[in-house]
């Protein structure tokens, strides 16, 4: 297993001052429902951010705005120097730089594990097939399932599928990874194998934005925890202070529900 203490011990160690994501004054509505309100957030390269908050607070919506799975209506989102507008070129550029892992894996069931991993590199990055397969095998080894490469997703366990999904994103060599509750659909014994993979990724300096209810993971890996409620960022702090010294009432209430019994 990776060593979370090393990360937690020095939260700011490999964080640069270069901006990976900058969100300014971002607002979003679903019809007349104001889901995201004045979101301001800057993520530096190498930062590992955990987003927490009650159900329906807009966590998913916020990180899905970062790769434009959802469109924001006002404010500004800049990812890796590219501003997200209606310009399709910019959207494609951002999407090829940002990997995303979903709660329900969303692997392509009609393709083998290997094909799942090589599809986007071949068609989007125009990597030759052989090279794409080598890269894919490299990442499948990294997530510890190289021997499943020629199976179909339906034959794998949930934890294995989620690790394939992580490998599939990594094959695009993204500079930023987004995780939307990657372990929520998994049985307890599979959660650990996925978290281990994510911790390893964090150790290598990947910029990560992760919506999760795994507070152990947040304490071990995150540089910063962001707490959202009612479509707003209510509190953000380093994990130690966030968990031991929460400031707002909403945060305290949330933490007592999720940690204490």
């Amino acid at each position, binding site marked *: 297993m990776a060593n979370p203490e090393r990360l937690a011990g020095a939260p700011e160690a490999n964080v640069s001052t270069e901006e990976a994501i900058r969100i300014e004054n971002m607002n979003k509505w679903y019809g007349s429902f104001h889901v995201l309100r004045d979101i301001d957030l800057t993520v530096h390269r190498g930062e590992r951010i955990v987003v927490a908050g009650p159900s329906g607070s807009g966590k998913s919506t916020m990180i899905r705005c970062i790769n434009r799975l959802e469109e924001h209506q006002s404010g500004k989102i800049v990812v890796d120097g590219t501003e997200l507008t209606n310009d399709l070129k910019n959207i494609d550029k951002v999407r090829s730089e940002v990997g995303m892992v979903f709660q329900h894996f969303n692997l392509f069931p009609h393709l083998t594990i290997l094909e799942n991993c090589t599809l986007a590199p071949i068609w989007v990055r125009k990597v030759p097939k052989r090279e794409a397969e080598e890269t894919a095998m490299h990442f499948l080894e990294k997530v510890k399932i190289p021997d499943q490469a020629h199976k*179909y997703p339906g034959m794998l366990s949930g934890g294995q599928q989620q690790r394939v999904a992580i490998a599939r994103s990594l094959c695009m060599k993204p500079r930023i990874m987004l995780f939307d509750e990657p372990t929520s659909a998994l049985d307890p014994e599979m959660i650990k194998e996925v978290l281990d993979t994510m911790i390893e990724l964090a150790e290598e300096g990947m910029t990560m934005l992760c919506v999760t209810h795994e507070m152990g993971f947040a304490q071990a890996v995150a540089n910063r925890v962001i707490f959202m409620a009612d479509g707003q960022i209510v509190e953000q702090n380093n994990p130690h202070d966030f968990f031991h010294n929460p400031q707002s009432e909403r945060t305290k209430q949330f933490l007592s529900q999720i940690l204490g019994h």
Partner: protein
Amino acid sequence: MSDLHAQTVPYVRDTMLPEQSPPAAQSGAVRWLRENLFSSWFNAALTLLGVAVIYFFIAHYFPWFRHGVWNAASLQECRAIIAEKWGPEASGACWAVIRERWNQIIFGFYPTELYWRPILTFVLLFVAMAPVLYTQLPRVLLWGTVAYPLVAMWLLWGGSIWPVVMIAFGFMLGGVILRIVSRWSALGALVAAIVVPVLFWAFLMGPIDDDLSYIAPIALRPIGSDQFGGFLLAIVIGVGGIVMSLPLGIMLALGRQSDMFLIKTLSVVFIEFIRGVPLITLLFVASTLLNYFLPPGTNFDIILRVMILVTLFSAAYIAEVIRGGLAALPRGQYEAADALGLEYWRAQRLIILPQALKISIPGIVSTFIGMFKDTTLVTFVGLYDPLKSIPDAIRNNFEWKGIYWEPFIFVGVIFFVLNFAMSRYSMYLERRLQRDHH
């Protein structure tokens, strides 16, 4: 604790049970009968009733088949033979008409000495389909598939080879233009790739054709559309309709889901209009109205016109079937494709359509089977379909006046065999895809 937990002695298994093979399947005819046909009084009664119905049908119709006469020159002769052999009251089938006229039911009025042309076309159809159905075959064979429609056209209708070559050349011209111009502008390329070939066909095709036909007169004997008939006609229209309606149906289904208002509206209006109108109406449009829209003097072949409207008709149904398939896909598939940076058409081709089409196979094949049977409606626009026009033509001969059931049965059996084969193939395809994916 409830008293369900009466056993209070702690228990720990000390030896693990070894794996055992499953019990042998229980079988036997009697057991099967009891389980399936006589499992209850009601079931037994239904079984007896079913057997009685089957018995009455067979008892009533079997003699007709048994008295069948294969060798006779006319219906009179058939009747004479039956009366002589089975008594004056006996009725019997006169299969002699099939023996005499089967070729008309299959080929219509196509000249007998040229039957090899439709037969070759039919055989080539399977050669052309092979690389589509079996992906392990080399991809170059797909060029043969692309060329097949033109080859088939030439073989069936005959005439000079040069117009066919020119049509092919026009398509290649369009393809090359699309390739080159799209480096600068996608829309410009599309327009140029359509306009230039059309201009070529309209203005250059005639003169070049004359010259080439003069220099190298390669031609087959021309056969007019009025000589097509029977299953030849049904299969030409059916296969043409199937091949063209699948891509059109896919486009319409995607169009109906599109975010672009105009495309969406056009697709919806088209689909709902076509589905709201009987096929016969469209066939009448093909035979009469379509001529008004075409430049005067163009003699657009009636079979081609019918094929186009049959295509539009089944494309609307196919579109709805595929829309069902698209709706059955979880939204996560679209999101994963988007998140990986796949652009719309790639995502559709690589991720969405393979899955949606797989789900839609039963519906698509049903639509195709329905459409194939509906080709018999072309009798109403004066074409010789196998079910009505051809038997009528046979009955018009003095020898076969009054013959009724035999051609129907023969045509019915052929339709059944072809459609059953299609349905079996689709089930095989479904199973194969199922195995591949799970």
